[in-house]
């Protein structure tokens, strides 16, 4: 079975771009707090989702709808509506994290295929078996803390599909278990579907260059001409133990392209590309490149051939293979 390429779509235009560039599946979310990329101006209305799914299906691609935040106490209606709208629109699966949302989906939408979001941080056979047995989860997105060897062992011990991130933004923290953003700003992925929200980001210039502040906390400083990272809290520069460093993570993005064959051998079903907040140009380029790489691997291509296909993406970028190689830890 060939690897499935799961690609991001922050907007209907990005969905069309991803499908045309060769995505087997596209994932997207509604324009509200039910999904973990709740950035201003992004995401889909229920009508746009219907239209997007029609387009994807007409081109032989699937659409997975991320409803992967934790429902707000006393206000679960938005999450219930998201599940109902996803099913009505003909979504091929929904990607969930919250016990309450999973429970509701399993009870009220028995025909809807359930995937477990990386936000649920299920990293052991016991936890995965629990989600599969209890809610009928069919696929689990691997937490970005596991090495390829660990994924292989995990896949041998479970009987659901697994999906692994291979490209894009990288959380050094275990996703779904991080409150750094709410400590600084009051908003976080689990609470509101955003991390380091743009409305709390401010740049200010002084004698020492430009400071990037997140709700008043300086998360980095740049001299003139120095490249800036996206102002995410955990990718900032801090002082600890007398040293100034990118303590949590360097401003790099994940690129596990060189590990596609190894991940396939480790039993991964699907490869996921991060970036619902990225533009059409980015989506098109990355999806096209990964699709070519996946096909080359299917055709028994050598690592050299695959490496050549991906060279354009790797060159000049600041990238890491993340936790997939144990040295990252």
């Amino acid at each position, binding site marked *: 079975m060939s690897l499935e390429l799961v690609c991001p779509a922050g907007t209907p235009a990005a969905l069309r771009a991803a499908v045309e560039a060769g995505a087997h599946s596209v994932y997207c979310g509604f324009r509200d707090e039910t999904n973990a990329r709740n950035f201003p101006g992004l995401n889909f209305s229920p009508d746009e989702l219907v239209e997007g799914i029609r387009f994807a299906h007409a081109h032989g691609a699937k659409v997975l709808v991320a409803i992967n935040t*934790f*429902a*707000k*106490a*006393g206000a*679960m209606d938005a999450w219930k509506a998201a599940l109902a709208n996803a099913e009505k629109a003909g979504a091929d699966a929904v990607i969930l*994290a*919250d*016990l*309450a*949302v999973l*429970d509701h989906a399993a009870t009220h939408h028995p025909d809807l295929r359930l995937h477990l979001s990386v936000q*649920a*941080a299920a*990293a*052991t056979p*016991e*936890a995965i*078996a*629990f989600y599969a047995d209890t809610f009928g989860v069919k696929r689990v997105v691997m*937490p970005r*803390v*596991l090495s390829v060897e*660990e994924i292989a062992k995990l896949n041998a011990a479970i009987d659901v599909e697994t999906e692994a991130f291979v490209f894009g933004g990288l959380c*050094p*923290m*275990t996703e*779904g*278990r*991080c*409150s*750094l953003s*709410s*400590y*600084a*700003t*009051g908003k976080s992925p*689990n*609470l509101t579907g955003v991390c380091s929200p743009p409305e709390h980001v401010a740049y200010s210039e002084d004698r020492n260059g430009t400071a990037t502040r997140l*709700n*008043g*906390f*300086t998360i980095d*400083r740049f001299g003139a001409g120095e490249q800036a990272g996206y102002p995410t809290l*955990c990718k*900032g*520069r*801090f*002082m*600890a*133990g007398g040293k*100034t*460093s990118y*303590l*949590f993570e360097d401003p790099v993005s994940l690129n596990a392209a060189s590990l596609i064959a190894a991940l396939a051998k480790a039993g991964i079903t699907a490869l996921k590309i991060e970036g619902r907040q990225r533009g059409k140009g980015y989506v098109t380029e990355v999806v096209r490149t990964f699709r070519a790489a996946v096909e080359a691997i299917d055709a028994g291509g050598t690592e050299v051939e695959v490496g050549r296909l991906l060279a354009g993406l790797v060159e000049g970028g600041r990238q890491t293979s993340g*936790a997939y190689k*144990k*040295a*990252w*830890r």
Partner: protein
Amino acid sequence: MPGTEKSIEMTKTGLTLGPVLFNWSADRLRDFYARIADEAEVDRVHLGEVVCGKRQPFTDGLWPELIERLQAAGKQVVLSTLALPYNPRERKAVIDFCRAGELAEINDLTALPTVAGKPFVVGPFVNVYNEGAARFLAGRGATGICLPVELPIASVAIIAAALPEVEFELFAFGRLPLALSGRCYHARLHGLHKDGCQFVCDRDPDGLPVDTLDGQRFLAINGIQTLSNGVEAFCPTPDDLARLGVRRLRLSPHTTDMVAVSRLYRALLDGRADRAETLAALKALDLPGELVDGFTRGQPGSARVEMA
């Protein structure tokens, strides 16, 4: 429901000493818990390593004698399990702890199949953000839930009201556990690999402060864990807690005088001291950071305590 409210008022609010989050030596832990057993005004004590599986071999042998010591002193003992288990040894440790015969606290759903069907408690590392998730866990046997630290106080009240049979607990004192990672930040800072970390996290028994480039006190690292630099000091009145439906507060161990902390909170919960007195007394202790309580006021967690 006036009846429910009355029964809550009549029940004494419980005080829990949470698990030690830091890499303390076996000797230090033994001395610490001996004093807790004899002097601390807490009715429940959590034992166990929840942050790093690599630290477990150093303390595994210690727990049986500490369980006995604390139980003999009249404390209820809860065994806390690892928040991020993934290798086979760590997974086995989680399951063994759950089967040890004491009340277990689950901090990851890895433990759920083992504890389901018998009473257990849920730690703040499990994502309970709404009454649906709480109800689901209660249905599996959860008798108590310590809610996630970032959960807005409005949500706490809604969840607690929906499930009066569950004992809800809030993290009230200590550096806030904010994040976990596959990566060890102590090792990274010291230029080491996690597999050969030399256990450098033991140098910072309250965590290592992380400051911004402008010198603001911000976070603290503890191996794979990131905590707040500020020390949470949620000091509610008994009425506040009755309104919220919260029946237990958690104090998280630090090197400061935890017996004194427990006495201050006991007096606060029994109505023998008011909020201002309690905060002033907490502030006078040797603490690793400023007092914060934003999460309990609908603010960013880093918001400082307002003393007035």
